[in-house]
């Protein structure tokens, strides 16, 4: 029930913003769209934790201006509750050959209190083909936080790809209510081996993910009887369409 409510909210939020743009696309040909799901996976933790994790985005727009939805979530399957759930809508525009800036809003609605944020971001391709996506968030409580995602693809063959990735979350001040301590509070490193079975539309993968929480954030988690660092085996699929 909770899941339904949350996903309806996210869908409604996305739809209401996208509708006018889609209407426009019927008349012009230079509007593109795409959906990319980087993570759609089942995680099995070293202590028997079972999670479903999702990370993806969708865009519509022109070369010059895109509207991009980014969503991520971790659903604890044993207790059926969202450890994390985030939806973001932002406008994105190029600032150089390889870099875009974006600005918009983000809404997090996991178990516990929800938060609205103003978000600005920078995403693009760094030298040596390193994909970077980073944000700065200002919450409705006036708290500043940031995240950065880094990803690199190692082609074992032209179909078999090994992808190391790292996500780092940091906060400039703590927000106890939502369990966030100040400083670098969470790091997640992943290594996934994927195979393109259907163009680049469907690429199943297996991998490992290591997640570690730091400082106060770790304390908050441990107070709830959970582990501050954990290894997961993951199985899932990348999707692009």
């Amino acid at each position, binding site marked *: 029930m909770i899941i339904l409510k949350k996903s309806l909210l996210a869908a409604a939020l996305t739809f209401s913003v996208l509708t006018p743009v889609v209407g426009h696309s019927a008349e012009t*040909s*230079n509007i*593109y*769209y*795409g959906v*990319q799901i980087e993570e759609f996976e089942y995680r099995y933790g070293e202590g028997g934790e079972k999670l479903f994790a999702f990370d993806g985005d969708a865009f519509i727009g022109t*070369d010059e201006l895109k509207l991009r939805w980014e969503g991520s979530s971790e659903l604890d399957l044993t207790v059926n509750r969202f450890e994390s759930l985030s939806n973001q809508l932002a406008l994105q525009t*190029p600032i150089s*050959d*390889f870099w875009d800036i974006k600005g918009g809003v983000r809404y997090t609605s996991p178990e516990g209190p929800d938060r609205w944020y103003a978000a600005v971001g920078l995403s693009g*391709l760094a*030298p*040596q*083909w390193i994909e970077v996506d980073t944000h700065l968030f200002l919450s409705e409580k006036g708290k500043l936080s940031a995240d950065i995602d880094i990803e690199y693809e*190692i*082609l*074992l*063959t*032209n*179909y078999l790809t090994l992808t190391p990735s790292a996500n780092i979350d940091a906060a400039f001040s703590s927000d106890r209510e939502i369990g966030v301590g100040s400083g670098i509070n969470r790091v997640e490193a992943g290594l996934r081996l994927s195979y393109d079975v259907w*163009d*680049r539309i469907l690429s199943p993968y297996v991998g490992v993910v290591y997640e570690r929480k730091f400082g106060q954030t770790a304390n908050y988690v441990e107070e709830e009887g959970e582990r501050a660092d954990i290894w997961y085996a993951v199985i899932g699929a990348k999707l*692009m369409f």
Partner: protein
Amino acid sequence: MRKSFMQSLQIGFMAAASIAILPSMSVAGTYDLTVDRVIIDTGDFQKEGIGYNGKSPGPVLRFKEGEDVTINVTNNLDESTSIHWHGLILPFQMDGVPKISFPGIEPGENFTYKFPIIQSGTYWFHSHSGFQEPDGAYGSIVIEPEKRDPFRFDKDYVVQFTDTHPHSGKRIFRNLKMSADYYNRQQQTLGDFFSDVRKNGLKATIDDRMAWGDMRMMKTDIEDVQGFTPLINGKGPEQNWTGLFEPKERIRLRLVNSSAMTYFDVCIPGLKMTVVAADGNNVQPVTVDELRLGVAETYDVIVRPMDDKAYTIFGASMGRTAYARATLAPREGMVAEIPEMTKAPLLTMADMGMDHGNMAGMDHSNMKGMDHSSMKGMDHSNMKGMDHSNMKGMEQEKDSFYANGSGLVPTAANGGKFLSYADLKAQKPLYEDREATREIELRLTGNMERYIWSINGVKYEDADPIVLQYGERVRFKFVNETMMTHPMHLHGMWSILDVGAGKWDPAKHTISVAPGTTVYSETEVDAPGQWAFHCHLSFHMDAGMFRKIFVEGGPKSASLNPSEQGVLQ
């Protein structure tokens, strides 16, 4: 003009011919084309595409020089369409580019093209609307000359190359916009890294990868769109189109590249090809073992098989991801060996415009330039990878239409002669040679990662038209700043390619500009109105490597006021 339209109309009624070869005495012919949804079967897969008169490729339209043609086009699609007569010199309203020549042909509607045929040779036609051309909307045109051609042949075949892709053009373009390397399955892998380490050492290999990684560009970026099946006259390699001959006959092969994105290196193992025409215009015969057929180009070659056996017409794609295959044989069902494709080329720093030796001493610094770049270790693997035969080939016949040290320089599979643009000399110049009145620089630009293609850094949608004056002779300077090869096509007027032969420079309709090179062509501005000018790689054109050309002045009847542009827009 009007009179000839009336004439052709009257005679057209009497003739009432559809795609038939008219008796040679006729001065006017009427042709009917329907634009249809069709099924294309490549042997590897079937797809729904677009064709003419129920099939793709459409028919061979056979015209005669001096004929006034009337072509009735019926659009059976549920979307707007158009037909452009690629390479034909005609009034701009008949050129078939929506929003430039005319509004287009709406679903269920007819459009009648009427124009005089004032040239001869091998050409082709295709849709200029949306992604209909990559979806199969093309056919070929053969124009018989008024006087006989200055070479002999007993048989005459159109050999039309296409690159049929399982995805629709629309989908390909969206995928490229989403991820520019979506279709590149030739990227360098970890295995390539280790084999380069073995060959060139760890440091050189890392330096090489770092240099390319720093630019965020790929050496393998030669074919944007892979995964197609090359067809010849609508037949895949397994379906094997076959042209019959009697030994000792001279066969004229009219090579046409109607591909959306793919260049082909064409050879017929066991036969020399004598090139007699390029882009429809006769050239001084040059005998070669192999030639590179750029997108939208045509070459006429004469071959003379002496033996009672089959020969393979083999066209390896420039990036070596696929090959086209057909057969010339004395009898149906005979086949010859299908050769292996030679190794896939890799771009070098020279193709990225990074070779400093390239600017000046094109002719004398070949070896030096190569040693130099090897020293720098910028592209060590490739230098080593260039075996001796390749080096020799470059010494013997360096091709100034490729960057100095380019990885794309073609070599014939049999080690023989590969046609260069520099070999093309007009058989009979179309125009008197004169000094150009001015030069227009066109930098071919793009952003591969975003799949944006442009001219002088500006996409078509943001660009002003290029304004030319009727009667002037313009020298176009193409500076290719991208790592891809662009076949630049000017509508309505000839592009006289500067091969350094003065009055014998050949007149073409499509000029292929290799990466890291500067190429010049001159145009006698003799056609009033407005015209399209673009890269003929379908998805580069659609991404913005396109300009409208506006010719001011000239005969009143055909010209258009600049202020009227808005109306046609």
